[in-house]
């Protein structure tokens, strides 16, 4: 029984890792080798594919574009969500519960629904094809998410901390930045992670709201069919590099993520 379940577990792990492994080995081979046949361990490993990406402006510009709107989106989302979540967590006001629930229901609409209004609006005001356009569009989804996550973490902090700070004579701003924020920094990490990941993998809005100037990496990857056929190796290398930021963010917030799951807010 024990053995069987062990095998099952290992089998599942292989199943999960296999596509990743394949992507990485493809990125380390040239096109001839890739097309030639099955090769578990690359015979002639090469970094030429990565060199191509870091040397070709179309590629690295794509990465830069993606990163700029993702970072912009994460910053805006968290900065907006922090005071909002604090208000939901600490104050009672008219319609607070309904508003809070409505934030969540916002996430139920598929991004495609908003394509047309965003496209028309941004074209009209000259925002089309800028990182800010994509960042703002993504905010529609990431702000409610961040508010929801942060509210959970904030409500886990006893209200007496706020009261003690008031008795100590701190103003709200000082308390929030110097005492409260360090207390919930785990929650901020989790919120950053989810905003970042949403924005990083979202394709539809990013593709529609950009032209040639702010073209994100995922879009560059879908347009690599050239006259000489498909450039498999470079494509795989781009895929590997696309995964890296996500892995890095997970690495930084892995401990707080567990707490977020425990609070039921992630």
């Amino acid at each position: 029984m024990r053995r069987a379940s062990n095998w099952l577990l290992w089998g599942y792990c292989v199943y999960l890792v296999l596509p990743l492994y394949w992507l990485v080995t493809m990125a380390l081979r040239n096109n001839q080798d890739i097309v030639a046949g099955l090769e578990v361990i690359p015979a002639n490993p090469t970094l030429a594919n990565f060199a191509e990406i870091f040397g070709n402006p179309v590629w690295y510009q794509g990465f830069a574009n993606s990163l700029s709107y993702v970072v912009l989106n994460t910053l805006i989302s968290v900065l907006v969500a922090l005071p909002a979540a604090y208000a939901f967590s600490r104050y009672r006001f008219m319609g607070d519960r309904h508003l809070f629930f409505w934030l969540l229901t916002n996430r139920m609409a598929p991004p495609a629904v908003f394509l047309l209004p965003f496209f028309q609006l941004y074209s009209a005001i000259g925002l089309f094809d800028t990182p800010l356009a994509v960042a703002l569009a993504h905010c529609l989804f990431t702000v409610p998410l961040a508010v929801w996550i942060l509210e959970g973490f904030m409500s886990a902090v006893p209200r007496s901390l706020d009261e003690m700070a008031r008795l100590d004579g701190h103003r709200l701003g000082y308390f929030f930045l110097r005492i409260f924020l360090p207390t919930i920094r785990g929650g901020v990490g989790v919120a950053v992670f989810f905003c970042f990941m949403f924005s990083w993998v979202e394709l539809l809005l990013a593709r529609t709201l950009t032209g040639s100037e702010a073209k994100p990496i995922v879009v560059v990857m879908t347009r690599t069919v050239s006259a000489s056929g498909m450039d498999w190796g470079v494509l795989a290398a781009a895929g590997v590099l696309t995964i890296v930021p996500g892995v890095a963010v997970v690495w930084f917030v892995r401990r707080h993520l567990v707490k977020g799951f425990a609070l039921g807010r992630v």
Partner: protein
Amino acid sequence: MAEVKLEGVSHRYEGARAHTLENLDLSVASGGCHALLGSSGAGKTTLLNLLSGLELPSSGCILFDGEDVSKLDAGRRNVAQVFQFPVLYESLDVARNLEFPLKTRGMPRRDRQARAVEVAGRLGIEELLGRRARELSLFEKQLVAIGRALVRPDVALVLLDEPLTAVEPARKWQLRRVLKQAQQELGATMIYVTHDQTEALTFAEQISVLHQGEVVQTGSPTDLFERPASEYVAEFVGSPGMNLVPGEVRDGSLLVHGHALGIRVAEAPGACTVGFRPEWARAISAGSDGPGVPAQVTDTRTQGVRQRRPVGVVRAKLGEREVSLRQALDVTTGDAVILQLDQLVAFRGGAYLQGWSRVEDGTYARA
């Protein structure tokens, strides 16, 4: 240290229909230790928030040393509070936590450090000064929280909101002693809020019993035991509380459950309630001498042994009412007994009327 006075303070939360506190008067001497005792929902937390300034009263005055602070915000009242669960700035070490309230009041760095060390010494936590707040046990955290409250040399008032709740029972005594010692040495005015009467009775010199938003009695622990102002206080204070049985004044004498004990009273005739504490009465086998009230034992509970005889609580039925008596267990369930009362009080209309105690020749004198 300040003398604290509340004059006609009422508070109603926004949107609430009824007042949480109504027309409340309270006076705490400078350097005194005062407890607020009440069951949950009596308005203890509201009163605490009014004192600290987290809430402002709807009407009435709060005076610190004669100065009206009713409209002052929490930060400007110079009040410190110890919460039910210890609250510290978790990312700072203990010394910095202690210094923090001084920093916001602009005390120079060197004085701050000296004061933090002094207060830590008073509480016996010098060895914790370098530790991180989040590494401490609950008990140590609460000690530091108390230190934080006492650290400001000019603090007007220290509020304690059930500070022993989170502490394990075995260490409650220790914390209470440390707290009381520090209070006496530093001369702080303290208001201690609790629903636990043992804590209130052992900690404070003066106790105010709060009930439904009003102070129903203020007095020393002895006052609360001997002369409860109302039937509510009589039942609420003590464990078990005071036994209350129906009584009557007829022809100038007091009848307890229809039996005369030879007590002459000058009150107008009519029904009243007679109360006696479990320690004030004794059930003895029927047929013994002396005036008493007949009853029947329904239950006995052993709580210990004294001079090789079991002692505990005897429950006895007196007509409809059941009463508790703390005594030697020389009677058993089902016995017909008579209750001899050493001391008793009478209430009329819920309020205290008079008290008597038995003198040597078996007659009763007014207490």
